[in-house]
């Protein structure tokens, strides 16, 4: 139970600054996910919270206490590592209990806590085993158990599922979701997998090159990405981006020229410092799942021929080559009989379209309504 606050936090390794002036509030008892491509600083941010790295500038508060210079042990956090970090020579029981020994707890209390944690994580039958006798998923559960018994104010997860194979990852994801509901504690979770972020998070922090791109609920990020980076990072397969040109502007709308003399009119607003003029080039973003096939060429936003089909069984993704050398990915139902070379007319609802500045990638979208 604790709020984590970053105030102008900067982190440099020698002369390389990896975290640039971050201001963040991670709400109490919420599940926050740090997501971003490799090297974006998400793990470093987590290690700053844990105290495994020193903060170069700014300050960090946990539960209202300035912990900027406190050692890890005094911060009331517990961390689950990507590589599990189990002590290979100890049994599961010893691994879970190790952090409790020599603390204020009595032997009975330690025993009670370990058994309780192993109950939650279904580890009871494994307590006498050594880590090398466990599967990857079991090892990760032990690592989580080690965190649970300490009853921390903040749980930190550093890419806990990335060493597991795909099916196990889905299973463990569900376990973590269940854990989140059972424990109702502040949890901070780092991943590069946007699916994990979308399914687990109450709040997602999208990071890129050591800076925050956007903070919001999974659905806010999905429906109202504030820039092209977030738009392309959240959602799978990723959003289509199509070059377009401003034909005309009105008070709250913009009409765009698209390839093959098509056009679309979208509601827009201008973020601070951005100007939009006639003939400016912009990018239209639309997710593959929001693109649909229309029967008549004249009703479509894009037309083109299919260059590649990816059949996933339940759904089919078709790559359609539209004008100006661009390709649009469209999701079709599994029953679709589209073949490579077919000509398709595609459309999308204006409400599902996003408009981005070509240079900075900022969105011209209206800010999302407060939830």
């Amino acid at each position, binding site marked *: 139970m604790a709020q984590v606050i970053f105030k102008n936090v900067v982190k440099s390794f020698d002369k390389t600054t990896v975290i640039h002036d971050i201001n963040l509030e991670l709400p109490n008892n919420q599940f926050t996910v740090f997501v971003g491509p490799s090297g974006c600083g998400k793990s470093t941010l987590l290690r700053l919270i844990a105290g495994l790295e020193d903060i170069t500038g700014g300050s960090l508060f946990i539960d209202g206490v300035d912990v900027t210079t406190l050692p890890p*042990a005094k911060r009331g956090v517990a961390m689950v590592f990507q590589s599990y970090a189990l002590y290979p020579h100890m049994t599961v029981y010893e691994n879970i209990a190790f*952090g409790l020994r*020599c603390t204020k707890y009595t032997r009975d209390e330690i025993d009670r806590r370990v058994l309780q944690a192993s109950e939650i994580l279904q580890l009871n039958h494994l307590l006498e085993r050594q880590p090398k006798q466990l599967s990857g998923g079991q090892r990760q559960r032990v690592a989580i158990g080690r965190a649970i018994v300490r009853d921390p104010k903040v749980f*930190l997860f550093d890419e806990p599922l990335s060493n597991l194979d795909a099916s196990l990852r889905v299973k463990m994801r569900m376990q973590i979701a269940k854990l989140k509901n059972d424990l109702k504690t502040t949890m901070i979770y780092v991943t590069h997998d946007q699916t994990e972020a979308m399914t687990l998070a109450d709040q997602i922090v999208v990071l890129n090159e050591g800076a925050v791109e956007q903070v919001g609920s999974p659905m806010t990020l999905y429906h109202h990405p504030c820039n092209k980076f977030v738009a392309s990072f959240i959602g799978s397969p990723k959003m289509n981006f199509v070059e377009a040109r401003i034909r005309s502007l009105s008070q709250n709308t913009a009409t765009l020229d698209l390839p093959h003399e098509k056009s679309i009119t979208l509601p827009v607003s201008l973020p601070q410092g951005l100007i939009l003029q006639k003939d400016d080039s912009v990018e239209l973003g639309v997710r593959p799942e929001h693109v649909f096939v229309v029967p008549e060429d004249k009703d479509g936003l894009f037309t083109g021929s299919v260059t590649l089909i990816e059949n996933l069984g339940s759904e089919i993704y078709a790559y359609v080559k539209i004008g100006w050398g661009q390709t649009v990915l469209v999701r079709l139902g599994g029953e679709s009989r589209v073949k490579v070379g077919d000509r398709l007319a595609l459309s999308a609802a204006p409400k599902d379209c996003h408009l981005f500045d070509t240079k900075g990638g900022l969105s011209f979208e209206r800010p999302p309504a407060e939830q």
Partner: protein
Amino acid sequence: MSHPSQSSYNKSQLTRSRTRDAWLFLLPTLVVLSLVAGWPLLRTIWFSFTDASLSSLEATQFVGIDNFMYLLDDATWRQSFKNTLFFAVISVSLETVLGLLIALVLNAHFKGRGWLRTAVLIPWAIPTIVSAKMWGWILHDVYGVLNEILLFFHIIKEPLAWAASPDLAMASVILVDVWKTTPFMALLLLAGLQLLPQECFEAARVDGIHPLRVFWRVTLPLLKPSITVAVIFRTLDALRVFDLIYVLTSGSLETISMSVYARQQLFDFQNVGIGSAAATLLFFIISLATIGFIMAGGLKQDGR
């Protein structure tokens, strides 16, 4: 691939040709080794069962195990055996403890670590003869700098004969060996430390476990394979100690080692038979120690 027997035939053909190639590559080494190591070893073992002397290697007679009986009966050999064991146990223990301390320091992150790592290795890089001679002067009873310093600070009242006095000779030898070989030990253990999973230590830090407890309960158990290997290396080395003792305390009964004894019999007394027997016995003692270590340390081939 359609005929399984055909494919397995091809496979074994391939395996056979690979095996043949491997032997071909090994052949030069095997020839050289059997000439420079195998032949002298067998010859030494043969001599140990004869009454050969340096002046008449040709006119020798087979005497069975007489030479070995003589050794076990000889007070000097028994002394050399005791000295060698004492030297090996004490010096290796000291080197392990000090080496581990140095390795832990060098494993920490601080400025100038690279320089220090190199500097620490200097004693090990000096040839033993040179460092033994050097220490011989440092420990010299009349001109030695050690006596000078100790006298200056009034720690001792009169100069001590470090290398010559019966009470101090062994301590001096151990001191010099520790000075020389601790860096090697530190290097082996440092290599081991750097292979340990860092996350385990980070997890311990986050969990607030006392550093001493982490050392005893995490570092040491995880480092055990490296320590075992290092101790085996050093013990085998210490059991055949020769040059240091020969140079520093030549001829002293207090420090004579099994190797020094063998050399003395061979060359000073020209008893090739007895000298060879002493060398052979040393060879078997070292072999036995190796086997014992491997069994006790539970050192399997995968290094666990």
